[in-house]
């Protein structure tokens, strides 16, 4: 499926893939090696680093990241290989014969220490004023190797101006160690290609096209580069000071909504293993911090399903019954702002495929400043809405000029999981030890369908549960409502479900094979779009795309580090919690029924919905002026 990426990335930037052994001498067959005197039998073709990690031998790395292709540029991972004149980079050395390796000889340790000293000689920044203090790979290596001075000197003046132009990503190139993980992330994983090493020699830096500020080039604000940066050179644009101010201001009613993914990951910031769900504790913490109300974004995820699902059915009807050629199918989801900006830039002629439904964050903002404000008798101008999101792109999304359908800025601040954790730490609260508590009314209940929005495939699964039941009057024909075809970390997934014995209103769908597809990470989104352009998706109906690998649980605002295993554990936390919820379908959420009875009285995709819950997109194009 990845032909596009393969064509594009050069040999050196492709992941190292080990093929299966054909016989006992070829690649993949076992070979006996020695690591620090210990004999091991390992598959030929694996790198020294992989072998050592599997056997609990620690090798320090900086430019290596398991989500990315091998670069071999930092040399932190050097080891001694017997018979070789120079030290070898463990991450880039595939074992092809019986070698003897030493991972911490004097020569190795001296080289690593020199590499660190050289990096530090150009590293301008102080750990105590750095966002990555205590979670920085450079800092921990300095500790590991007992750096106790600057052997090769130290810069005492800043060389670069901090780039704060973007709503999402702040670039502080003084702290960059040129490992190029961000470059590989942005090019290979996301296919956006914002960052690359520019200039040469001592002047080399990670820069943008023509060295422009980040806000002026085509960045989708996904924040994936932040999650993979080993240092504090890239970080998110933090609004927490303003939020603290609003909390202290007695005239402000500060409302917070929390997305499904942060609760599955925020524990990691407090030393818990990945995949520990903190929903109840988080609510308590937020209340104690002084927020007036804490709501569940899952409620508006349910709302999104109602709107997006209805929109899909409307499109199907226009296409099948009215034979309307202007209706675009398949319908693409629109809840990932990174993906939305991606399609606006790279496929501006195909925006009609996108659902017009806003993302859950923006829907909630609009509902809070209209429906909620009226019910509670609060002037919407005094309401401050904060959204806790796993996402950096949400910061850009809430600042889009069109996102003010309540008459005010619908969502005032997008706050990432990491930033919320920082705010909690500032209060001295110990999150894991807090008692659990529930979300506030009137949006106190959300369905499990809303919860699984956090993982890739979740929106599709939630939508199918509702759409299938609306159309046929029966539950989706999957065990325990779990649509396994939507789950898992494969880049592009597809499946179908047959609609039979439809209720009268949807009889036009009788016998239709509803085909759907799920993709995550914008490199995969690009592959899907290329398939669409070639006409290969003409029989598909619904496509879910998430901008970040793994979906929201792998979002650019989530705790660092990230890896496929961590993302899987977070997803598991969400699915496990979901399985135990009483309501697991969006349309059965009583609060959703309530809001359509009391407020959005003309129903999903009605007039008021269109005003508050739907949006339009901009043809941005990819020309950088």
């Amino acid at each position: 499926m990845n032909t596009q990426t393969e064509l594009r990335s050069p040999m050196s930037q492709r992941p190292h893939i080990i093929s299966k052994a054909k016989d006992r001498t070829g690649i993949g067959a076992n070979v006996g090696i020695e690591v620090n005197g210990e004999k091991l039998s390992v598959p030929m073709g694996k790198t020294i680093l992989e072998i050592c990690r599997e056997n609990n031998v620690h090798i320090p790395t900086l430019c290596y990241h398991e989500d990315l292709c091998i670069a071999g540029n930092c040399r932190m991972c050097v080891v001694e290989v017997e018979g070789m004149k120079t030290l070898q980079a463990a991450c880039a050395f595939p074992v092809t014969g019986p070698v003897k390796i030493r991972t911490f000889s004097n020569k190795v340790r001296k080289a690593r220490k020199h590499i660190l000293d050289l990096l530090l000689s150009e590293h301008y920044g102080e750990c105590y004023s750095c966002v990555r203090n205590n979670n920085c790979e450079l800092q921990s290596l300095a500790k590991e190797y007992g750096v106790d001075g600057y052997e090769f000197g130290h810069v005492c003046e800043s060389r670069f101006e901090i780039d704060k132009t973007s709503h999402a990503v702040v670039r502080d190139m003084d702290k960059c160690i040129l490992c190029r993980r961000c470059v590989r992330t942005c090019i290979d994983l996301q296919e956006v290609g914002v960052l690359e090493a520019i200039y040469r020699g001592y002047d080399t830096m990670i820069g943008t096209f023509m060295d422009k500020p980040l806000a002026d080039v085509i960045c989708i604000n996904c924040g994936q580069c932040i999650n993979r940066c080993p240092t504090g050179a890239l970080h998110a644009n933090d609004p927490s000071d303003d939020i603290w101010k609003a909390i202290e201001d007695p005239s402000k009613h500060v409302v917070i909504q929390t997305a499904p993914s942060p609760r599955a990951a925020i524990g990691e910031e407090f030393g818990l293993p990945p995949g520990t769900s903190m929903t109840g504790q988080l609510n308590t913490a937020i209340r104690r911090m002084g927020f007036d109300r804490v709501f569940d974004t899952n409620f508006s995820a349910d709302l999104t399903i109602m709107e997006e699902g209805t929109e899909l059915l409307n499109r199907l009807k226009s296409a099948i019954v009215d034979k309307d050629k202007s209706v675009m199918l398949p319908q693409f989801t629109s809840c990932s702002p990174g993906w939305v900006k991606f399609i606006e830039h790279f496929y501006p002629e195909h925006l009609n495929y996108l659902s017009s439904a806003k993302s859950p964050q923006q829907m909630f903002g609009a509902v809070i400043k209209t429906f909620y404000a009226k019910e509670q008798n609060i002037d919407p101008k005094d309401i401050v809405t904060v959204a806790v999101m796993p996402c950096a792109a949400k910061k850009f999304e809430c600042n889009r000029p069109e996102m003010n359908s309540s008459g005010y800025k619908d969502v005032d601040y997008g706050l990432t999981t990491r930033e919320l954790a920082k705010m909690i730490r500032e209060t001295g609260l110990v999150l894991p030890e807090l008692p659990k508590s529930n979300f506030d009314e009137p949006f106190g209940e959300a369905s499990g369908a809303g919860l699984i929005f956090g993982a890739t495939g979740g929106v599709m699964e939630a939508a199918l549960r509702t759409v299938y039941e609306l159309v046929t009057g029966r539950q989706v024909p999957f065990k325990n409502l779990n649509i396994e075809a939507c789950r898992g970390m494969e880049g592009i997934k597809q499946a179908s479900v047959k609609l039979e014995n439809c209720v009268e209103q949807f009889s036009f769908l009788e016998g239709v094979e509803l085909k759907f597809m799920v993709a995550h990470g914008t490199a995969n989104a690009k592959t899907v779009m290329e398939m669409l352009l070639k006409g290969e998706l003409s029989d598909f109906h619904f496509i879910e795309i998430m901008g970040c690998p793994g979906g929201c649980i792998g979002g650019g605002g989530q705790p660092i580090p990230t890896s496929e295993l961590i993302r899987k554990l977070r997803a598991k936390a969400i699915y496990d919690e979901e399985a135990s919820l009483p309501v697991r379908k969006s349309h059965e959420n009583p609060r959703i029924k309530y809001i359509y009875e009391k407020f959005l009285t003309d129903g999903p995709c009605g007039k008021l919905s269109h005003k508050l819950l739907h949006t339009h997109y901009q043809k941005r194009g990819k020309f950088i002026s």
Partner: protein
Amino acid sequence: MLVYEKNAVSELVSDLTEKYGKKRSSLLPILQEIQQRYNYISDFAQQEVARMLDIHPVEVYGVISFYAFLYDKPRGRNIVRLCKTIICDLAGTKAIADAVKRELGIEFGDTTKDGRVTLEYANCIGMCDHSPAMLVNDHVFTGLDPETACKILREIK
């Protein structure tokens, strides 16, 4: 940039892509030819190259900013590059540098007002055995002294 100028650039880039093939390794020859034609590689041309080779504009810019002989801004009709590496330096680059600066009335890195000459330093051009050396466009001049250097500069159009 005017529309018809843009079209001309696009056409050139598309011809060059055809000539050298749509692959990453065609990037350098394509950039060199664009520069030969236009004297520099504009941001529009860079993005056209990126589009046609299906790579990202920043990758093109990364290459241009890496190579000293590729330019993203307009420069003079002629480029004079004086070797600044140590062998030439020992043989008297400094005196030549002072003389040519006075002759042209500009500093290194600048272009004369009439757009006739851009003056630059270059790293070793491989003429150490005939140092000091200087490049004028594609021509090498060796064994220079301040007077000859100025004389050569006076002769270029």
